[in-house]
């Protein structure tokens, strides 16, 4: 079955190759890591939507969290002679050989959402978010929201040692620098999960005089914030009013909480990495404009003023 499709698409491609490569008849291979999280499912959905919108024939390969499957997928894309390859690499190392093969076949490769440690002439560009910047946006919002009033902040970190946890903490602390009214009084890991977010928030509340000492919560992802919001409610306080809640990711459930007035702000880690990637690719194929080696996606801030219910309805169907 796979061989047949491969053969069929190879013949079609061979036929097309001598024609002009306009966006209308582009074929692009997309090697996705797998379906490890709701965010990644949304990324897959949006990539497919973006390709469809632009009339691109997208060949999708799910690697089920294995690098060997991704390398196989890339080799098969190269054999099929696709016009370009999008890849969300599962790990950072071990890509030199297959990327060189793609380069020799003159197929541009674009990295989505994660980078690799190969030399940067082996790929066209990398489209990722800036984790430090996300933390920074969240911090700036809190600085503005408190407007100089003294405020004790508690922080729910991601999994200890993971790069989002380190960078989102760093960015947030940078934003708070010079604003002495804001103080991080407690910081613990909630492992990016709702259960741990709730459990750790319970202990924060008890440790800080039943929560009366806490004026804001910063969570490294929305799931922990959703768990913590329940803990705050069970402690008899009002999340969003007594304790401000700001988090990162912008998954649908946090918009429901914002619509209910229980969360205040979230910073979007956009699952639409394919949009900017395909923009850059189309420009490159059209007249050879080389994009920058790193394209940073927008880290958009959503607050209660942004009609959270509407955003929730929009995001709900993306597979989060």
């Amino acid at each position, binding site marked *: 079955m796979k061989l047949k499709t491969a053969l069929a698409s190879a013949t079609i491609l061979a036929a097309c190759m001598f024609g002009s490569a306009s966006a209308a008849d582009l074929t692009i291979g997309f090697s996705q890591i797998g379906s490890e999280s709701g965010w990644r499912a949304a990324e897959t959905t949006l990539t497919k939507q973006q390709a469809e919108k632009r009339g691109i024939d997208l060949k999708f390969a799910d690697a089920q969290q294995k690098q060997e499957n991704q390398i196989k997928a890339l080799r098969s894309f190269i054999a099929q002679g696709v016009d370009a390859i999008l890849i969300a690499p599962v790990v950072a190392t071990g890509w030199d050989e297959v990327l060189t093969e793609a380069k020799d076949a003159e197929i541009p490769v674009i990295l989505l959402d994660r980078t690799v440690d190969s030399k940067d002439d082996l790929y066209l560009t990398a489209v990722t978010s800036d984790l430090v910047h996300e933390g920074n946006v969240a911090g700036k919002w809190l600085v503005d929201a408190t407007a100089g009033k003294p405020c004790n902040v508690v922080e729910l970190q991601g999994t200890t040692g993971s790069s989002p946890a380190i960078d989102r903490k760093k960015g947030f602390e940078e934003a708070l620098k010079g604003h002495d009214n804001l103080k991080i009084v407690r910081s613990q890991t909630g492992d990016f999960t709702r259960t741990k977010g709730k459990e750790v928030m*319970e202990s924060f509340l008890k440790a800080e005089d039943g929560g009366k000492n806490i004026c804001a919560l910063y969570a490294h992802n929305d799931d922990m914030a959703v768990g913590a919001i329940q803990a705050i409610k069970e402690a008899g306080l009002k999340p969003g009013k007594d304790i401000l809640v700001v988090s990162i990711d912008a998954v649908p*459930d946090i918009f429901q909480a914002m619509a209910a007035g229980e969360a205040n702000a979230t910073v979007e880690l956009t699952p639409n990495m394919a949009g900017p990637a395909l923009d850059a690719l189309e420009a490159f194929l059209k007249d050879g404009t080389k994009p920058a080696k790193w394209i940073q996606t927008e880290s958009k801030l959503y607050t209660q003023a942004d009609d959270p219910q509407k955003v929730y309805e929009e995001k709900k169907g993306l597979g989060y």
Partner: protein
Amino acid sequence: MIDNAKRLGRRLLPQFVALAMILVLIRIVFPDFFSIEIQNGRLYGSLIDILNRGAPVALLAVGMTVVIATKGIDLSVGAVMAICGAVAAASSVRGDPLLLTLVLAVGTGLICGVWNGFLVSVLNIQPIIATLVLMVAGRGIAQLVTEGAILTFNDPGLIFVGSGSFLGLPMPVVIWLVFGIAVALLVRRTALGMLIEAVGINRRASTLSGIQTPLLLMAAYMLSGLCAAIAGLIVTADIRGADANNAGLWLELDAILAVVVGGTSLLGGRFSIVASLIGAMIIQAVNTGILSSGFPPEFNLIIKAAIIVIILVIQSPRVQAGMTFLSRKSVRRDTAEQSVQ
């Protein structure tokens, strides 16, 4: 009767001492630790948190104790929690009545137990391998049920299981206390407990002496599945959503640890459910204590490991033998001195 109580007290002494020591230690680091107040008609405080957050591991430890007593082990409980939570959430989202939701979740847990029991007792596969199958596959099954997303629900009845309260105690505490005591009475007030120990010590001899070994093993794994189902219901109801990726993740190891800290041997045979329950509370006390203490999160696992090692060292046969030796010696010296006087 008094003799029995005395024996039980002596059996549980090391666990009680360990628990008390940890609580005192946390109290030193975090002065407000013992304060309990009433908020919204329910008890509220760090000690209640320990009882509440320890519910999943306590429930798992009940089933795990019985399975380990039969010289088995059940690695699949964490995954079974995820499956049962997912089934409950899916059923609740569909709009099923609460009773059906609960029956479906518990039924799923029992089926998982039957699967494990079948592999172990009928096909004679080693328990660690047999249950590994479901441990690995279980999360995949749970993800199929939730379709990869966190499945949230709003049924107040189901939410009550996780965050409601009864007589001022959080519902999970009531559930594990009642369930744990019921199982402990069941195995100790009937011959069941002795039969389980017999199978664990020598399966062949037990079979030859007329015990329905396959049936007993099957029942042990079904009990473990049932415990996992209830634990899965609690964690799912607690966050009002089924998180197939994270519900019960690594809890099988905490449950085994609770049994070991409770002094039951992994080689099967003699067991104590009450001791395992205290073991579960010891583990949770350490977890909650670390969270309350305000240390940086990088230290969490190191502190936990250090405390567990100390507890296990105190309980190790060598140290125990040494302590008995010393205490006997001092008793003897006392009596000797008395007789001289």
